[in-house]
């Protein structure tokens, strides 16, 4: 699992690559937190283009990232969600809490 961040004009883009599970989510979440604390973005996009698998641990990553961004009064959204992660997020009804765009 790798975490890549880019920052431009108040927008922090966080791109995850690999499989999200309880093991990988821990380090990913630390890196995400550090990036947010450093940049204090107004807008944050989590790009899941490179994520082909998540279990329920990915749900916690979305919710905790959103919580951090909302504490800064920022906007949060998730983009490029592929089929398997989308199925997991839908099963847990994450869409009612987080703005999610699927990969087309």
């Amino acid at each position, binding site marked *: 699992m790798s975490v890549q961040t880019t920052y431009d004009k108040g927008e922090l883009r966080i791109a995850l690559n690999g499989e999200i*599970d309880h093991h990988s989510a821990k380090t990913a979440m630390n890196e995400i937190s550090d990036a947010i604390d450093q940049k204090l973005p107004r807008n944050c996009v989590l790009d899941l283009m490179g994520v082909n*698998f998540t279990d329920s641990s990915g*749900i916690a990553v979305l919710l905790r990232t959103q919580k951090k961004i909302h504490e800064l009064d920022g906007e949060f959204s998730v983009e490029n969600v592929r089929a398997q992660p989308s199925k997991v997020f839908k099963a847990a009804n994450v869409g009612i809490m987080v703005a999610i765009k699927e990969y087309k």
Partner: protein
Amino acid sequence: MMKAENYIKIEFPSLSVNESFARNAAAVFAAQLDPTLDEIGDIKTAVSEAVTNCIVHAYPNEIGNIQLRCRLFGKNTLEIVVRDWGVGIEDVEKAMEPLFTTGGDERSGMGFSMMEGFTDSLKVRSVPGKGTTVTMKKRISSRARR
């Protein structure tokens, strides 16, 4: 001669790095049933949830053994068994309710719901102080009917 049904049995310590190994081993074993990508995703999700539960809940303060068994069941069904010898569950019915968790902030209480939703049957047997066995069955659609 005895009819040999194919199976695998793998035992590994409850280290979180093995979560990915376990779900991918199950997926590779399932490949002989020619599953769709969607079905492979379901199998990986269910195994990941079950194995993570052993690592997080069954052995909270120690490293213990986890056993993963996969077996072909009939022509088109995969049986998956995940077993631990950890703390066990007092009230299985309650533990299986959506959103129920003893894991606090870190966990969402969705594991059993995922296992149930992504397979065709889920059975949980547990004895407090002795351990937990999770048995799941997943039917793989035959190629002809796709």
